[in-house]
């Protein structure tokens, strides 16, 4: 049982993160279409992404938006489809959020800075 205020906050965080994701996904599609023009070799892609602040900003934002959006939806799925309730679900969702953030940001770091 979460408070009314928490529920309302979760709703607008999920709504706001969805809006951010929608914009980022459009950016992602544009990057993809641009990227394939010169072929799809790893060296070619890394050559373009290395040191790109724009690339880093776009994908960092996308990863963070996913880390906010996904766990809120997962809690609803766990509650409604699996019947799981309580703090274990919240903790599990929090850990999943951390996993998305860590893996996503590591990937961004990998193609931009490493």
């Amino acid at each position, binding site marked *: 049982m979460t408070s*009314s205020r928490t*529920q*309302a*906050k*979760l*709703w*607008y965080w999920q709504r706001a993160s969805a809006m951010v994701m929608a914009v980022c996904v459009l950016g992602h599609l544009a990057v993809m279409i641009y990227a394939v023009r010169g072929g799809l070799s790893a060296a070619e892609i890394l050559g373009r992404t290395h040191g790109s602040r724009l690339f880093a900003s776009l994908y960092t934002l996308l990863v963070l938006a996913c880390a906010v959006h996904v766990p809120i939806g997962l809690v*609803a799925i766990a509650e*409604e*489809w699996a019947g799981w309730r309580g703090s274990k679900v919240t903790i599990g969702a929090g850990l999943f959020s951390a996993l998305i953030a860590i893996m996503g940001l590591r990937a961004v770091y990998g193609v931009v800075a490493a």
Partner: protein
Amino acid sequence: MTKNLKVKIWRGGKEGGFATFDVPRQENQTVLDVVTYVQRNLDPLLAYRFACRVGMCGSCAMTVNGFARWTCRTNVSKVEKDGRLEIAPLSHLPIIKDLVTDMREFFDKGARAKGQFKGKQNRQDEFARVDPKSKERIAANAGIECIGCGVCYASCDVVGWRPEYLGPAALNRAWTLVNDVRDIQQTERLKVVAGDAGCNSCHSLGSCSERCPKQIEPTAGIAGLKMLVAMAALRGEI
């Protein structure tokens, strides 16, 4: 038009089964006419509810060929498939017997969503003046024709997944009162409808709006509640 209808009707409680009846087909026959024919001529022990027969009281809703409908205003020609009808009690509500469900939880949720009007004026005061063209009045108008039939509640998947969910009818009622400028318990109402069982559980699937026999759109009202609740949370009011 077939001469006879093959009608399967739910008999028993939760553990029960369908019994099949042959009912003469007639012009302009409603599903409620069919059930009444069965009860009066074929099986007097059949339990079902109805009162007004003209779409006002909201007591005759049943599941007809898989969809919740008001049976008094549902013409057989609209729903029969190859002369067959399957009539069952409403979903998401405990069955008392045959087609009669226990609707207490449905109505209790209406009360829990602060579905009661509370004003500050008394009978000595002047009438409150509400502009018919105001945004609030128009929003309330869109939802006030609810007859409490339970069709939306029985059609809502979220009610099935999350039994404590207040449901479309209760939230629609809350939405009409949120838009009643005379009501004085708005913050308490927003607190209730913002909770675990409230408006934020709605996934906007829209079955309630699609099936409502009064063409009310609870989905739209619930979306309005979500916005109000979010704004109230941002302002720290709830």
